[in-house]
């Protein structure tokens, strides 16, 4: 079973490497969205430092949404998603493998980029570690939720905007806890409780998410 998941991960990674330019798009999008804020608000360092955590989090959510929109599209069009559904292995495990590959190629670069964006926005260096920690838990949780939305909207016209409408309300608690932890950290207050809640939400979605995801894929392919 784990072997099958490994196969899916390897296959997806190979595909990502063949089209590695596509993996750069979410990263570029993240940088662009973040750099829009100083241009719109002015470059006053105090203001930028205050909004830095929120801006980075929102930009991460948006670029994840954008990349998740097409996470199943290619496989659906060429029919390999149907093959995955038909395979004797549990669908939720195989889909989790796809998401792990997606995390390696998209989530991880976003995570690596976040500290640099923090510098770009004059964010405090004390908040840096906490930013990384919240994103470590936050990005996989957001991807799991977003992928369920992507599975429900496979093959629909204007699925992208629909995906955002479906998934953003469900993502709100994660954004709230992520930014709350960061606000607490920059103010020098204890932020562990928010981090624990984030971690708990991550584990909850890790357990329940793949089940919902496999059902969503089945519903869309039926």
């Amino acid at each position, binding site marked *: 079973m784990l072997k099958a998941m490994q196969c899916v991960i390897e296959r997806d990674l190979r595909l990502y490497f063949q089209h590695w330019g596509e993996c750069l798009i979410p990263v570029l999008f993240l940088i662009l969205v973040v750099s829009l804020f100083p241009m719109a608000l002015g470059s006053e360092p105090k203001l930028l430092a205050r909004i830095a955590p929120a801006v980075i989090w929102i930009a991460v959510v948006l670029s994840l949404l954008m990349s998740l929109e097409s996470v199943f599209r290619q496989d659906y069009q060429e029919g390999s998603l149907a093959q995955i559904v038909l395979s004797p292995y549990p669908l939720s495990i195989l889909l989790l493998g796809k998401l792990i590959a997606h995390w390696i190629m998209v989530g991880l670069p976003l995570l690596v980029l976040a500290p640099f964006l923090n510098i770009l926005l004059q964010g405090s260096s004390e908040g840096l570690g906490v930013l990384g920690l919240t994103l470590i838990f936050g990005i996989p949780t957001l991807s799991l939720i977003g992928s*369920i939305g992507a599975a*429900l*909207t496979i093959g*629909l*016209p*204007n*699925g992208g905007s*629909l995906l955002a*409408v*479906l*998934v*953003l*309300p*469900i993502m*709100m*608690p994660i954004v*709230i*806890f992520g930014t*709350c932890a960061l*606000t*607490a950290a920059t103010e020098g207050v204890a932020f562990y409780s*928010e981090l624990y*809640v984030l971690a708990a*939400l991550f584990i909850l979605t890790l357990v*329940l998410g793949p089940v*919902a995801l496999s*059902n*969503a894929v089945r*519903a*869309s392919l*039926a």
Partner: protein
Amino acid sequence: MQLEQVWRNGMNRFLHRLGSLQVAYQMAGLCLPWFSTLCVLMMVYGVVGGLFLAPPDVEQGDAFRMIYIHVPSAFLSLMIYGVIFVNSVVYLVWHIKLADITAKCSASVGATYTIIALFSGALWGKPMWGTWWIWDARLTSELILLFLYMGYMGLRNAIREPKRAAKASAILAVIGMVDIPIIHFSVEWWATLHQGATLAKFSKPSIASEMLYPLLAMLGAFILFYVALLCVRVRVEILKRERKTQWVQAGFAAQGSGAA
């Protein structure tokens, strides 16, 4: 033993009949006048008792009367999401078509109640708090609930194929229901972090009975209105889906010739 057998047989037959859309159509038609009559009666009592007979509030004056619209619609907005959730689970497990139809027909009613709750809250907030909107925990949760409704309806509208639409939106409803307590908890957390105890924390004194009974009547009336509306909408939806079957065509033919 035998009694149990009889009971089980009868129960099975009842459930099976409920699964038949024709029976559901007729039952909804039978119940509709009762629900609507009761609804009108309760609403008349609630409106007269609440808007005219109940004394004005000591602190809020006449503005408190918004409660007779606001509280029932806020209650209904959550209750209807619960109804959609239950029906979605029933549909996912047993594939009962009626459950899907009920969920579909409930969604827009629930969304409308959510909008009414938000608007009536804003109208009440203007004279009371001096602002139409504050990012209070309860208001924010209600707003996110509206987004959930919109997403649900959007997904349903976007999918042409009825079976896929039913399944996909049922899955979404279940996920949303799991998320609602988390949203509520997170928003409460967020609101306490960003603003201290403000006027949003309205400590409600125990309510006088002349005010309470009309409120309960209005709550009952709103629920009955929803149920009655659901009956009408379910009947229309059944006719739409079963338009190619014999019983619907026979019914229309009879109506067309003036016999019914």
